[in-house]
């Protein structure tokens, strides 16, 4: 790793985005004290990863890429073991284990061996074990890779709830949509160094303004073009669509609609197209993120 310089604010969800092999997991392993850095400096929750690795480990919860669960243990046994290893008393450990098993919906499966769990159940258990000592900082290394869309949504909801409760989340992902949905800020890593960093909105704004795709049934595109030109650059899109890049951003949609209506121009359909993190990734690295191509589309969960 070289050229990684980042700061995550307390209470933030930080999305660490990059293709396979970019260095996401290596960075997380160093921050979690699983791997000793050969140079540089890193501080987690106020503890230096080299000088006070024990302090780091007390402050963090970790759910690694492969849910590292013993298939021969039951969910409940694993939760209690994790509680003991984090110094909780037997009583407190049992109480928290039960509460977390309930929270992730695994109470009914708690006495089954982990080897019988589905992929989604394993991820939820992994997440629950990472929370047993109520960590200040939670590291999630590709928490939804390989999960079906429903399980992915469940994990997302849980991550949001945890963040709402004050937990700082450091999330690595190769799914652009995941970073877009969850992260307050995103860092894009490519070949071991940071390619870009910022809020998803700011990063998208950097690569371009949103545009409208309009379908005009009566084919009066030249008259529409005149009306639309006052709001931004007008062009011709695919399939006869008229496109207008909004100078004022998404806020310019309502004036466009009003102007077209006042001009008596009918509109069959109107789509607001925002730049995506995919566009950001392409703009910053010159290529697409292959992991996201493999991801199944996920609907945004209800608020």
């Amino acid at each position, binding site marked *: 790793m070289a050229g990684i310089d980042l700061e995550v604010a307390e209470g933030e969800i930080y999305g660490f985005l990059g293709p396979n092999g970019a260095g996401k997991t*290596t960075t997380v*392993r160093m921050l*979690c*004290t*699983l*791997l*000793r850095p050969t140079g540089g400096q890193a501080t987690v929750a106020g503890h230096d990863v080299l000088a006070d690795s*024990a302090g780091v*480990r*007390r402050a*963090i919860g*970790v759910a*690694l890429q*492969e849910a*590292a*669960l*013993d298939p*021969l*243990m039951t969910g409940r*046994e694993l939760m209690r*073991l*994790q509680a*003991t*290893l*984090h*110094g909780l008393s037997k009583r407190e450990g049992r109480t928290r284990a039960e509460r977390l098993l309930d929270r992730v919906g695994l109470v009914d499966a708690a006495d089954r*061996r982990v080897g019988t769990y589905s992929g989604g159940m394993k991820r939820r258990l992994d997440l629950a*074990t990472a929370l047993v000592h109520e960590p200040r900082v939670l590291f999630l290394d590709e928490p939804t890779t390989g999960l079906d869309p429903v399980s992915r949504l469940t994990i997302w909801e849980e991550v949001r709830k945890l963040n709402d409760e004050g937990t700082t989340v450091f999330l690595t992902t190769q799914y652009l949509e995941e970073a877009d949905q969850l992260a307050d800020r995103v860092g894009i890593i490519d070949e071991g160094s940071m390619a870009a960093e910022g809020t998803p909105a700011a990063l998208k704004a950097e690569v371009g303004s949103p545009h409208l795709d309009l379908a005009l049934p009566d084919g009066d595109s030249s008259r529409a073009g005149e009306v639309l030109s006052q709001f931004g650059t007008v062009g011709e899109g695919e399939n006869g669509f008229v496109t207008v890049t909004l100078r004022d951003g998404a806020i310019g949609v309502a004036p466009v609609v009003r102007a077209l209506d006042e001009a008596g121009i009918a509109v069959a359909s109107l789509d607001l197209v925002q730049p995506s993190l995919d566009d950001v990734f392409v703009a910053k690295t010159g290529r697409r993120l292959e992991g996201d191509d493999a991801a199944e589309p996920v609907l945004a969960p209800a608020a």
Partner: protein
Amino acid sequence: MSRSGLLVFVRAVVALGGRSIRQTFRKPQFLAPIFVFPTLVLAVNTGATSAGREIPGFPEVAGFLDFELAGGMIQATMLAGVSGGIALAADIEMGFTDRLIAAPIPRSTIVLGRLAATAVLGALVGVWFVLIGLLFGAEVQAGPLGALVVLVLVFMAAAVFGGLTAAIALKSGSPSSVQGIFPLTFVLVFLSSAFFPRALLVEPARTIADYNPMSYIVEGFREPIVADLTLGASLACLAAVALLGAIGAALSGLALRSRLRNG
């Protein structure tokens, strides 16, 4: 180490040891070779080579099984060590060790918890072979205290063998690499006084057995069974255990450090 630090240390070893014992009992592949295979070898050896007792120079023993019991014990103890090493390597391979490394516990407890479980398994091996011996007519000449000494020595030897295989597990992170030393355990056992007195072995086996620490360990197990309790055999056994323990601790420590440095 402060008192609270010691408490954290002990709790972690006990918790991880308990988990390892449960793991062993839930996976017959870990358990069966430790008990079944050495018991079969003991049965075959006792039946097929009992005439060896008639060879001039063979020690005075109440029965040939009495003499052979220690051989079964050391074989099973070494296999318990191999089994512990395989389980540790499997933990590394599936990432479970990362979970433990990320916990606020002394990292040595990850290995010591496993060794504690292997030692307990060793004690069970001792109980198993003593019971088998008693069931088939053997006697522990040194009485209950002698039996206790045997169990303690087997307990310690199992931990030591576990330490040696833990070093291989930590270095390789591969269960199949640890499994690869399985044949070596047989070579070491058969080139010792496990099944025949050193004095009656032919050269070069005799010289090899003289330098093989397994000979002194197995003779420590055997002495309380075939004779009165003597300090000499037990001390020689403890010295061999200490030697192998020091080698295992040094190698495991280096391997653990290397794994933590390189991930």
